[in-house]
């Protein structure tokens, strides 16, 4: 009775396609090898964000040269989506002006459905979209509870820069 029962669960279907679309290789890569984690010496903007309901945390430090993001550090802990999103974000905004950062943030948030939009922001048939790797996060949209994980770093960056 106490050894694993012989009534096995029906032969596993392969996990759903949506899951595969969320956990793309590039995301796991950023989760496991997060970029831009070294603390900065010169910090012009910083903020901490957390998602109290699932415990994801992220700390962002930005060093500005004029209005250009000269260096960025993103550290935190949490699920693969929150940490990969933070890492990819750090790559995407490095070297960009604050205005460009705001645009990328906007495009990202539209892609994730966090900001309403009429247009189909990122369209697989439109290879010229500006988000690059970040588009991999589109798969998260099928998991509404996880969208706030993807969004955490972006909201925290906005907070840092708007202070």
């Amino acid at each position: 009775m106490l050894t694993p029962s012989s009534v096995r669960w029906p032969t596993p279907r392969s996990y759903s396609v949506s899951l595969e679309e969320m956990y793309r290789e590039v995301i796991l890569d950023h989760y496991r090898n997060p970029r831009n984690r070294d603390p900065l010496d010169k910090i012009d903007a910083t903020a901490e964000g957390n998602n109290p309901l699932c415990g994801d945390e992220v700390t962002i430090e930005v060093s500005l040269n004029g209005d250009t993001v000269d260096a960025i550090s993103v550290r935190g802990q949490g699920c693969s989506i929150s940490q990969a999103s933070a890492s990819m974000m750090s790559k995407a905004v490095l070297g960009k002006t604050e205005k460009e950062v705001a645009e990328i943030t906007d495009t990202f948030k539209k892609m994730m459905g966090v900001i309403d939009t009429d247009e189909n922001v990122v369209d697989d048939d439109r290879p010229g979209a500006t988000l690059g790797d970040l588009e991999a996060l589109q798969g998260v949209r099928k998991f509404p509870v996880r969208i706030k994980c993807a969004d955490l770093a972006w909201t925290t960056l906005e907070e840092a820069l708007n202070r």
Partner: protein
Amino acid sequence: MTDWAAIRADFPILSREMNGYPLVYLDSAATSQKPQAVLDAIIDFYSTTNANVHRGAYSLADEATSRYEDARSTVARFIGAQPDEVVFTRGATSAFNTVAYGWALRNVTEDDRILLTIMEHHANIVPWQLVSDLTGCSIEFVGITESGLLDMDDFHRLLDDDVKLVGVSMASNVLGTINPIAEIAEAAHRAGSLVIADAAQAVPHTSVDVYETGADWICFSGHKMLGPTGIGVLWGRPEILEAMEPAEGGGEMISDVRLDGSAWAAVPHKFEAGTPPFAQAVGLKAAIDYLEAIGMDEVERREQELTEYALKSMAGVEGLTVYGPATAEGRVGAISFSLADIHPHDLATILDQRGVAIRAGHHCARPLARTLNVPATARASVYLYNQESDVDALIGALADAKELFSVA
């Protein structure tokens, strides 16, 4: 022999599909599902007997009052207490707060200490922090051992006669660990301290006799023991309840209200300000009737069996770490674990796609999570309606997770 398949069939939600799979509900430590008998009792009450209690001289109000007080007697019998030692609250959390405001705020000073354990749920931490803010008393925490048991040496070391209150969970909602409440209570009393026990994970799963625990107060929730949300229980020793002030003020808890002050009603009504959750009390009674029809010893035995099955199955998953006791003995069926470097939140999402509902997070016990040095854990918890195949489904879905995360 209990027909566990028939028991399972009593829970309507368990026949539900989730993401294309049968729902496998492994989050009963957060809240339990309800058997049809409980739902029927609630509907029957509202459809035939609903009236405010302790207020009306008419027959319907009298019937409602009888049903409400009958529920109190049922709870009392279930935990080996007298009816007037049983206070109905909104839930376990409210029960703790009732003691925080009704007793601690008025009996604890800045020279006093409150001793908690590092494995307490926030419900048995934050109310005391609020008291500490208002009174200046200090709070200390007993640690745990490597194997997830309470560090009793640490407890005895920290216990001295400045300690006015010891707060301890009878069973941890994260580690599953069952704590030696009687031993703790005895030592605490010898040191001159009172004891409040968190029974939220004990009363649903094992037969509890409040006097055998040795505690002075015991708190638990209806929704974790097949009952409705919105109701919980504070049990207290009669002489202590008698001496306590009410936490909340309002109707029903008074014997007189004058412009310059009020006199309180007798215990337990003194602690039940306003309209109590009387329909929920009726639902809780139905839940207890249901549990008692099976027998709490049998419920406990079955859960031990399932817990052991789960622990064994999980031991076979490479990369999986269980937090807390490794065997079913001395623990309840809340099993926290992690799997390789897959974040618990990701695990929960992946399992959910197979219909398997587990929790991920700090489980309202952040101090414990910090002690374990994990930001979060995954937790599977079983109850009497689970079956071995639920565990199998969990194990199968864990394999998905490993594959998706390319974990060997």
